[in-house]
């Protein structure tokens, strides 16, 4: 491949990761997956419409398919793999499984990141706020009902209301 960038460094999930000889046009999604082996972020539209590739860049939820990888130099990137420090499922991940919010699972990692981002910024969202926050993440299997149920449970548990 010609037009390569030489060398740069990304900070992903708290670790410095070297990217060598990558083509300048590579998206952050491509580099995370194909060069750094972080396959959790998924590509499903390459247009920022479906949210399957959602990651956090300096705390903002972004579609990694729309971010040029080299432009993320100097930023903190968090992927779905980096949400849990010890590898055990987070409360959001557990709730998705328990409430049937996972079917084919392709949209799931992006949704998990989006839900964490939502609840970090708004710990007690109304149902319509949840819908708006997740409306950039398309799920083709579930019809969203079980996803809402999962989010509702996480909110209640974090508030200390539920079991």
């Amino acid at each position, binding site marked *: 491949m010609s037009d390569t960038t030489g060398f740069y460094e990304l900070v992903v999930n708290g670790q410095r990761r070297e990217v060598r000889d990558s083509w300048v046009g590579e998206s952050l999604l491509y580099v995370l997956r194909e060069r750094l082996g972080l396959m959790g972020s998924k590509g499903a539209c390459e247009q920022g419409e479906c949210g399957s590739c959602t990651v956090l860049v300096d705390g903002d939820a972004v579609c990694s398919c729309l971010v040029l990888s080299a432009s993320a130099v100097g930023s903190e990137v968090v992927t779905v793999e980096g949400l849990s420090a010890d590898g055990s499922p987070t409360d959001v991940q557990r709730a998705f*499984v328990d409430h049937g919010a996972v079917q084919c699972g392709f949209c799931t990692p992006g949704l998990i990141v989006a839900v964490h981002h939502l609840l970090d910024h708004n710990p007690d969202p109304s149902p319509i706020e949840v819908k708006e926050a997740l409306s950039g993440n398309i799920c*083709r299997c579930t019809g969203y009902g079980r996803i809402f149920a999962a989010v509702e449970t996480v909110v209640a548990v974090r508030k200390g209301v539920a079991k």
Partner: protein
Amino acid sequence: MKNSQTTTRTKSRDVLGTSALRPDGVAKTQGNFAFSSDFQAENMLWGATLRSPHAHARIVSIDTSAAWKISGVETIILAEDVPGKATYGLIASDQPVFARDVVRYMGEPIAAVAADHPETCRRALAAIKVEYELLPVLADMDAAINPATPPIHPDGNVFRHQRIVSGDPDIVGDVIVEGTYDIGMQDQAFLGLEAALAYPDPGGAGVELVVATQWLHEDRKQIADCLGLEEEKVRLVLGGVGGAFGAREDISLQVHTCLLALRTGRPVKVQYSREESFFGHVHRHPGRIHLRHHADSTGKLVKVEGWMKLDGGAYASTSSAVLINGITHLQGPYACDNSRLDAWATRTNNPPCGAMRGFGVVQACFAHEGQMDKLAAALGISPVEIRLRNAMKTGDKLFTGQVVDSVAPVARCIRETAAIPLPDDPHHDTGSLELPGGSGRTSDPHHIRRGIGWGVSIKNLMYSEGFDDSAEARCTLADGVATLKFATAEVGQGFVVLAQQIARTILGVDTVVLDTIDTQIGSAGSTSASRQTWMSGGAVDGACRLVRERLFEHVAHVHNLDPLQLVIEGTEIVDTLGPLRVPVADASAGLRIEQTFLHRHRPTEELDENGQGNCHVAFAFVAHRAVVDVDTELGLVKVVQIATAQDVGQVLNPLALLGQIEGGIAQGLGLAVMEEIVVDNGIVRNPSFTDYLLPTALDAPDVVAVTIEEYEPLAPLGAKGVGEPPCISVTPAIVAAIRNATGRDIMRTPVRPQDICLPD
């Protein structure tokens, strides 16, 4: 990468009937589950496909010389490089691996390249020069049916014509209503794009393909034919499947990927973009249906007559089967003796169409439910009353002469749906996201009208017309652990958890390991037609029962008992006539019992020339009631609530069932108000998620679901397939609700803003 599929739970037992959790769930939430796009190999190349920009053209020349000169390009293949059969297809083998002389639809593959990077592939495709001579585009179904139209393919422009004539086709009713209904082309739009990785065997003797598909063995047969290899030389492994909904039943990138790998001697990965995915798989057939319903003065159906035309596009795929499903369901879930119906599936230069959830019945239902509302209006009775007066029962005969011997609680589906409370009246403030138009915030609450509509449907389960359908599974019990092997494609529906539940229930074990899903066992058939719970579920059930028999024989021998006295209670083997209680884990210690079972459903028949014959296996029923808010000035629709009662047989996993119901409803909502591939004289205008709109979280209605649980004696587990019914009658229910809100006689789906506020 290998997907771990082991779940051990000790607290409560995840047997049949419980909401057992799927074994792949945690991995999917953590991003650790390997989808077909997540596989990588040492020394791997990327592959990509060159496609026709024209709907119909002669290929004058193909010049690959500039592409070969690009650094990093390893191979370029064309039609002449296909070593085996030049075509493939599920029913008729008419789709070229690569177009040779002529392209018949926009997006038809012409060449494939393998290179060191996806960007190199893109540049190589751009450098291939193809000279075309444009040909007249056949885009209209009526023109295709007209024998005077020149054929665009040697097999002609009609894939199939079928008629149904039953009872007294000349009888006339007291009340007659008629209508012509149009259904747009819907895309399955699974999230996980087509992707595969092929590993060539040394010397090109064979190939292994990791792929997301619905039917491993059918893929293997078609791939092997095109590669010119024995089937045993082609091994398929199911890569994680990111949804399917029918779009993975046909071949897409399988042959191309294998060819590139065999040509280069290196592993090759192909992954479609979203745009290419729109061109790379078949869609739901668009269609036009004209029906004339006759009823007596009380509203009882007397006769249904009319025609159905479905556009199959350029190649056959499953068009002939979709057509039969369509015409045999034009009756709807209503008793009626007399009919005269004709149906055609046409070949045009539009995108090829084939399987999508509902398979011909979605189109039929949109028309027959529109007709039931017209009848109700003509008779001055309610949509509920007209449907109750005609509701089919077990024992009723279809237009095909087939007796419905499935459980058929149609009236109960309608009544239980009607009993679900309606939502509160709309009282939204300007700017609310709950208004039609959602985050566009354009709706004026004063222009909003609410409407209610109904849809009821019948759906056949499994394949039809004499297809010899079977599913195989193997169960191995050793030291208290059951291992299951099957080739059943898990596409998200949750067969992996159902299989575990079956084994836990039958064998009294808690740990059930699922072996890799691949072609190293007999076929499970396709994950389609609402068939895997019945078919592969029946196979797993059968294999587990055979293992249990051997286990009982062993225990009976050790304890000098009659094996017929033994049963499983929880996790123990219990002597029903004596004191013996022994844990299955202990009884199977040091043993290894392995059994394979092949499940078949009862045979079906082909239809005769008058459409008579027992062509279907079994049926399921469902009712939907939709409540919508419509901004009549802007033509915007918000689906507020869907109430549904679905006939499901025995409930095996309530949580998974609810997921099918809610997910199917969202897809039916998409077809009702937003999803359509716009095709203009063969040219696809919206192949992207920016322009092809899918329901988002803000579009999701409140779903209130009731299940009608009645054991289905025909089914091995008493359970009907539940995947397709949720998406069928919800579409006509929503469109009926829009008609109710607006007073407009909207005859097409999806309903566009202009159909509401700018009617002609």
